């Protein structure tokens, strides 16, 4: 009782603190932009967590869905002036189609086929994006036409207007994950993750459940891709479909706690803070490379000390805390 209660209040306090960030005395656009980057990072982790953490299907190429969301929105806007409010649907549809193709082929099989297929597909999309230069800008990347501050184009010179949609996305995905973990569909996904044979024996349609989980995760990822390109105003093949991006998407849940609602939020926040701190320390003490070393070391430490993610030890700590 105590834990749930204090957890909720800490969460609400954090959301209010982030939402009111621009009004804080020390706040500037650098800090706001850093928080928005964090929120986008977290939201991607939350989307991946649905299929990999809750559904147990290891996607190693989730950048595909992210890249489709970003490119679809940006290309539609530049070439035909389609506003991102409509472009986002095209991105989600494209991600859904690719998800159905990958899942439809590999989810009837067990083992590594799905994970392999996601890698192959993301490599293929990276190549395609580099090849179709006229459409995607190729290696140089794709720059979203900037038409000045507008709600219609979801564009802004200042980062601040992106803070609230990004925060809303993270809060929304958190609530969705909480609901999923308790819902019938979410329980079936977790049953499939824990034991496919037993899930089948329990009457769960394993193939369909995995496919629906991937579909949801892909659409969630594409939506973040749209927000990403609106905020950064640029996207390139490596950033969209590359394996580094795919790994980035996996880290928040792995660090924070796979298959939990709070995990990606915690993991994403801790990672960005650690990254910024080590960056700062490295330039402050003028030791180039220190940041990467310290950052990598910290991640290793977390993975070794809390292999189930940070959310486990943290909730144990809150439970132990005297009243």
């Amino acid at each position, binding site marked *: 009782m105590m834990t749930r209660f204090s957890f909720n209040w800490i969460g609400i306090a954090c959301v209010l603190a982030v939402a009111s960030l621009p009004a804080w005395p020390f706040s500037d656009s650098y800090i706001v932009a850093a928080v928005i980057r964090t929120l986008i990072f977290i939201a991607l982790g939350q989307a991946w967590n649905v299929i990999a953490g809750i559904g147990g299907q290891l996607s190693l190429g989730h950048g595909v869905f992210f890249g489709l969301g970003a490119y679809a929105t940006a290309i539609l806007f530049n070439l035909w002036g389609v506003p991102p409010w409509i472009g986002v649907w095209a991105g989600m549809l494209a991600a859904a189609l690719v998800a159905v193709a990958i899942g439809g082929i590999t989810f009837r099989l067990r083992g590594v086929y799905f994970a392999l297929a996601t890698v192959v597909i993301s490599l293929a999309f990276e190549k395609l994006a580099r090849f179709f230069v006229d459409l995607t800008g190729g290696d140089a990347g794709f720059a979203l036409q900037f038409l000045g501050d507008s709600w219609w184009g979801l564009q802004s010179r200042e980062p601040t207007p992106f803070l609230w949609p990004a925060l809303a996305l993270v809060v929304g995905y958190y609530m969705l994950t909480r609901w999923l973990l308790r819902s019938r569909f979410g*329980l079936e996904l977790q049953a499939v993750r*824990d034991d496919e*044979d*037993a899930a*089948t*024996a*329990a*009457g*769960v349609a394993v193939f369909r459940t995995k496919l629906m989980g991937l579909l949801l995760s892909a659409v969630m990822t594409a939506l973040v891709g749209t927000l990403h390109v609106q905020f950064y105003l640029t996207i390139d093949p490596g950033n969209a479909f590359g394996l580094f991006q795919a790994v980035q998407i996996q880290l928040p849940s792995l660090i924070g706690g796979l298959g939990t609602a709070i995990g990606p939020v915690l993991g994403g926040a801790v990672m960005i803070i650690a990254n910024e701190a080590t960056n700062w320390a490295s330039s402050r003490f003028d030791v180039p490379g220190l940041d990467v070393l310290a950052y990598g070391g910290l991640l290793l430490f977390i993975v070794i000390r809390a292999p189930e993610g940070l959310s486990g030890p943290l909730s144990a700590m809150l439970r132990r805390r005297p009243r």
Partner: protein
Amino acid sequence: MSEVLRVEGLSAGYGDLIAVHDVSFSIGQGDVFVLLGANGAGKTTILRCITGLMSPRQGRIIAGGAELIGKKAHEVAKLGVSHVPEGRRVFTHLSVEENLGVSFIDARAKGRTLRQAIDEIYALFPRLSERRKQHAGTMSGGEQQMLAIGRALMNAPDLLMLDEPSLGLSPLMAELVFERLAVIRAGGTSILLVEQNSSCLELADRGLMLANGHVVLAGDRAALEDSDMVRRAYLGTN
């Protein structure tokens, strides 16, 4: 006597290998039927054919008036045929109550609510009610087996099929599981049991013995107990 399952001329195999050859049997309502035989004799293959995890080469499998062959595995569970796979397969990260909830199918509820169905399982296995919020993966082997059986009973099946339920359990726990199976049978549920443990014979009404995919013996409990083959294989006497 009404039948809950009839298997006719079932043949199945993997590639060139024929695992089961022309097997026929039927199970009446409230009966306990045992499949005996050494490892590799074809017992699990028969279960896999009934549950829809495998397509047989030939034969018919009829339950509740419906042909099971061609049905998808998750649909068979909705036809009143429940399956406890070998090896205590529980959903380790879900709680006991969530494990039970996942397998509850409204169409099979027969007017019971989810709560009532879960309480029936708790009445059968009081230990599970003490563990209701616990993650299934943290329970003992015996408790996990109780949960696996409880999960299979959530839809009040006409036929409960168990693949080696006593495997890896302590003798005491195995005894408890068989004792609970007797209670389940007394409630009118038929049971198809694949078992290496000789205690299962005490429970059996009828059964058959397989060797290399062929039926080598079929009959009631007395016939099974009197058989030299069964004695040698199961009772350790000559």
